[in-house]
């Protein structure tokens, strides 16, 4: 299994500002995913980040709002730009690893926007 860490674990931000969330994996992985989980809800995929190429965004998510970097096979960042209270959520990093295409998740970043 892959061990994933995220920074920060939580943050409280002002409307209009931006926050960059970091995701570090203890092994090289091809595919990394960013999810959003609003309180009491399921996980919604924001984008898939592959090293060396542009991230692929799901419907309803755009690069200007959620720019993603993937500089190498163990690291990725997600930026939440020009934040509004509607962006308050938990953001989860995930990687695909192993024989059975399992996905492993980071501990999440709890974001509150005032």
């Amino acid at each position, binding site marked *: 299994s892959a061990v994933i860490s995220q920074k920060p674990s939580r943050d409280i931000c002002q409307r209009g500002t931006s926050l960059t969330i970091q995701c570090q994996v203890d092994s090289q992985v091809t595919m990394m*995913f960013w999810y959003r*989980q609003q309180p009491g809800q*399921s*996980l919604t995929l924001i984008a898939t980040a592959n090293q060396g190429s542009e991230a692929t965004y799901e419907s309803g998510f755009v690069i200007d709002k959620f720019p993603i970097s993937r500089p190498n096979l163990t690291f990725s960042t997600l930026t939440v730009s020009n934040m509004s209270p509607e962006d308050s959520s938990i953001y989860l990093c*995930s990687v695909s690893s192993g024989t*059975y*295409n399992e*996905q492993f998740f980071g*501990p*999440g970043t709890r974001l509150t926007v005032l």
Partner: protein
Amino acid sequence: AQTVTQSQPEMSVQEAETVTLSCTYDTSESDYYLFWYKQPPSRQMILVIRQEAYKQQNATENRFSVNFQKAAKSFSLKISDSQLGDAAMYFCAYRRTTSDMRFGAGTRLTVKP
């Protein structure tokens, strides 16, 4: 598009008893994987069990087992001898071999002492 449905928003079970969480999915594919994840209040998603669609035998992991009915597109999770630490949100998930994972809405499990 693949969809995953969990029809039980909440379930409760008495400690030491058995509980079954339901999951159905919709797909036209024949090759895929199914998973159950647990998310306790700490919010860390933990893989509980997986099932490969090409395997007829139901997966088991200690107290956790699944009832995989491929024709019915059903994938239920049975938790035996429930423990207080089993209390969490449980998500059923579907994944094709190279695509991302799709999650159900989740079932909140409460374990009563």
